[in-house]
């Protein structure tokens, strides 16, 4: 059987016979973008394979939006090249790149109805009116907006606007989908719902998707891989689990979730391997167990380290309880699930903390 992989790629059978591997769908080759004397993106190299969901995560000013703009064709790299399906797109204007983009503000055309908004990309690709109508109907149904085709964007709720924006980006069936902070403007509940929606759309349409966000939860939930950027450079690329479990730097450790970074803990921390110089100790708050001082040692005592400390603060957060515990000169954050049937400690209580030695990570400072 001949499977067509996409409009830029030869059928899979043929590729398999060739010696060269499948070119990545998107490839950044040492791309630098200067704004005046400031480099927004520095020597960015990155490759994304077909059908992958990749999230670029970073604080504001980290260059993640610039990277997306370069890919979308709204800015030109100062140095380096960007390849799509193996071909340089340096000279290809945005309107010939065949990408779907969901903008942070959605950028729905305020003077056109929902239907006309969805038709726009089809019309620009020269599709006839009849074909357009059928496609729009199907897409509206897919995003559960069949009733709202005649409305103006201003008459839609935030979540509905978001869905129109997604539908408009997908309707012309571009091989690449770019999402710019897609859920930034939504409230929390809606955001979770839309995360599910984006995930299922990705599964269904299988587009190579690049998402830019500063929301770590969004990144962890949606992505196959995450790129953490800082000051225009890549800090780490990996799967969500690997990033969380084995952060390469203390920046990644603190940016993705909460972390106890112990530079000068004031007490001896036992590690399985000798701590190399220039590294610090990192342990996640949920890896630390808290117990009364008198509590007996549990199982695996040999693999655990335990220390004593004093509760400085207790924060109740619904399903969780967070303690700040002073141990010698450092304060450790400890996170406990509430229904664990454990004792609740008050500030001033003497407690015993312990953790698995294997949960200790050594990261470069």
């Amino acid at each position, binding site marked *: 059987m001949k499977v067509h992989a996409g409009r830029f790629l030869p059928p899979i059978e043929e590729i398999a016979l060739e010696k060269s591997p499948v070119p990545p769908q998107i490839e950044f080759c040492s791309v630098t973008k200067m704004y005046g004397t400031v480099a927004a993106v520095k020597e960015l190299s990155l490759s994304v394979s077909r059908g992958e969901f990749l999230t670029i995560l970073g604080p504001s000013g980290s260059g993640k*939006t610039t990277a997306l*703009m370069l890919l*979308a*064709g*709204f*800015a*030109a790299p100062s140095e380096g090249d960007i390849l799509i399906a193996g071909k340089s797109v340096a*000279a*290809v*204007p*945005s*309107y*010939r*790149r*065949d*990408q*779907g*983009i969901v*903008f*942070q*503000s*959605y*950028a*729905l*055309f*305020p*003077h056109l109805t929902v239907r006309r908004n969805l038709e*726009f*990309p089809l019309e*620009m*690709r020269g599709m006839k009116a009849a074909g357009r109508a059928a496609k729009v109907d199907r897409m509206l149904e897919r995003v559960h907006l069949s009733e709202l085709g005649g409305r*103006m*964007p*201003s008459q839609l709720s*935030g979540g509905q*606007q978001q869905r129109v924006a997604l539908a*408009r980006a997908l309707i*012309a069936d571009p091989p690449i989908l*770019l999402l*710019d902070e897609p859920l930034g*403007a939504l409230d929390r509940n809606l955001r979770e719902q839309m995360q599910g929606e984006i995930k299922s759309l990705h599964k269904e349409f299988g587009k190579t998707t690049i998402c830019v966000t500063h929301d770590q939860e969004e990144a962890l939930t949606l992505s196959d891989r995450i790129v953490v950027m800082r000051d225009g450079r890549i800090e780490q690329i990996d799967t969500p689990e690997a990033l969380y479990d084995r952060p390469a730097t203390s920046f990644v450790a603190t940016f993705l979730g909460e972390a106890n970074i112990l530079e000068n803990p004031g007490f001896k921390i036992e590690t399985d391997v000798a701590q190399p110089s220039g590294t610090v100790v990192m342990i996640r708050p949920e890896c630390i167990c808290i117990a009364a001082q008198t509590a007996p040692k549990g199982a695996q005592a040999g693999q655990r380290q335990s220390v004593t400390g004093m509760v400085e603060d207790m924060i109740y957060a619904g399903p969780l309880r967070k303690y700040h515990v002073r141990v010698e000169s450092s304060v450790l954050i400890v996170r406990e699930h509430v229904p664990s049937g454990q004792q609740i400690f008050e500030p001033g209580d003497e407690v015993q903390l312990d953790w698995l030695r294997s949960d200790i990570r050594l990261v470069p400072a």
Partner: protein
Amino acid sequence: MRTLQKLGRMPIALTVPAFAILLVAFGVPVIQLLLTSLNAPAFSVVNYHAFFERPANVRVLFQTIEISVVATAICLVIGYPTAYLIVAASKRLRTVLLVLVFIPYLTSLLARTYAWIVILGDRGLINNLLLDLGLISTSVPIIYSGVALYIGMVHIMLPIMILPLISVMLGIDNSLIAAARSMGARPLAAFWRVFLPLTLPGIRSGVLLVFVICLGFYITPQALGGLRDALLSTVIAAQVQSALNLESIAASAFILLGIAAVVLSIFGLDISGKQGLAAQPTRGSRPSRLPCLGKLAQHIKELFAPYRSKRWIAELYQPANDGGWWQIVGAAFVTVVMFFLLFPGLVVMIMSFGAGTALEFPPSGLSLQWYRSFFSNPSWSGTAWTSIQIGVAVAILSTFVGTLAAYGLSNTVPRLRGLLTMVILTPITFPAIVVGVATYLGLVKLGLIGTKTGLILAHSIGSIAFVVVIVSATLANFDRRLEQAAQSMTAGPLQTFMKVTLPLIRPGVIGGALFAFIHSFDEVVLSSLVGGAVRTLPLRMWESMRNELDPTIAAVASLLMLLPVLWLVALYVTWWRSRSTAKQAPPNT
């Protein structure tokens, strides 16, 4: 007593002084004028009949419409690309170009008209140049022809067209254009399908403003146009100044007003034009019912505010192959337009330093004789002093009354606010000549014709409208929760206004005062009708332009052209200061 107290607490009461002035000087006389035109109490259309029975009148009427339509069309055709190119320019260049558009906008109408007389006249710059080059043997008549009329009118109206367009274009979210491109729209398609429809509100307000002003315009047409180019407003003004046949004046005035009303209703009375853009969820609140002049205030703000750079900034990168030519054409176009807007002023300024007995260009020698003549001749300096006195009085009165009214209006229900704002703005949205005739009638009743008080009153009705527009626009961006916060700290309404609201809207108030002064200082249509023995500077210039060729007027015009620079500096200082306090705010809170 209780109802009176209740009334006193109602915000609408704050608009009473403004409406009182408006009614006495303009509102009541307009209604009287309408009744007169209808032959009240008998009520008949005999006066309108009489108007249309005279072929000369009908010819003038059609000519008025034709000239207004053509001038508006020319302004749009030149103004739209200019506005587009200004918005597309880099931030620094954009600021420079905006200032270059603002300078003629704020420059005295008479000074600009005079400049064209100097350039297009029989012994003017162009004729002299052609004669010197030997291309012609006798001077060609340019002035007093249709061509000169259009050149002058377009010159005056162009900034009025460009500014609302720029204002709307700056408000367009760049990500919309980026979105269109990402969906495969070529630059031209993105322009037609997305950019142009989104700028329609700007086109509409620009066209309406220019057209209505053209309708009631008579200074420039009379100075530059020939006898055959008479406009209805010229005819009305002549009627008022000669024999007073009130019925026929009233009928003519209302026919002119009728045309304006028809055009307004065709293009839609709501000239704020923000409804279509309300879709942007991220867009901050904007005054939605403010007529187009609100753009002016917004515009000044935008001039000095840091350009709201969206994250998908304007660097819509174009591959090298299709950018070059268009850039050259665009740069050339903007240069020509800027030259057209500013060149006449420069010519007059250079000529004003001439040493000869008549004006020449280039001057054979340099001297300050015309400036000396201006300051030593009381018929010039005296009128200037009168104008300043009247202007300051108008500015104080209308800023006070107008700010109160704007504040009162901002606290009333939107529907009522829209209606009342429209009424307050009639003095600047009605054709000038109609306002002039009505005010004339009103002041005759009050016995104030030919007095400074009368002039102050007449100018104030227009100036109040400017203040209301500008202060309302500022109030629309003012966070009402700050007042609630002050009240929660036990500040009374008056204390809240003085300590919180007023300091925060001060830039708008100062801007309003400035425009009130400019309006009065430059006013000539009303003044010529109600001024009588009081001579203002514009009246003296108008007289000089028509009767004598006293080169002193060149010095006066040059001085008046320097004023806008002063205004811009004043506005800059005001807005810049407000910006710096706004910037300091976040870390403190």
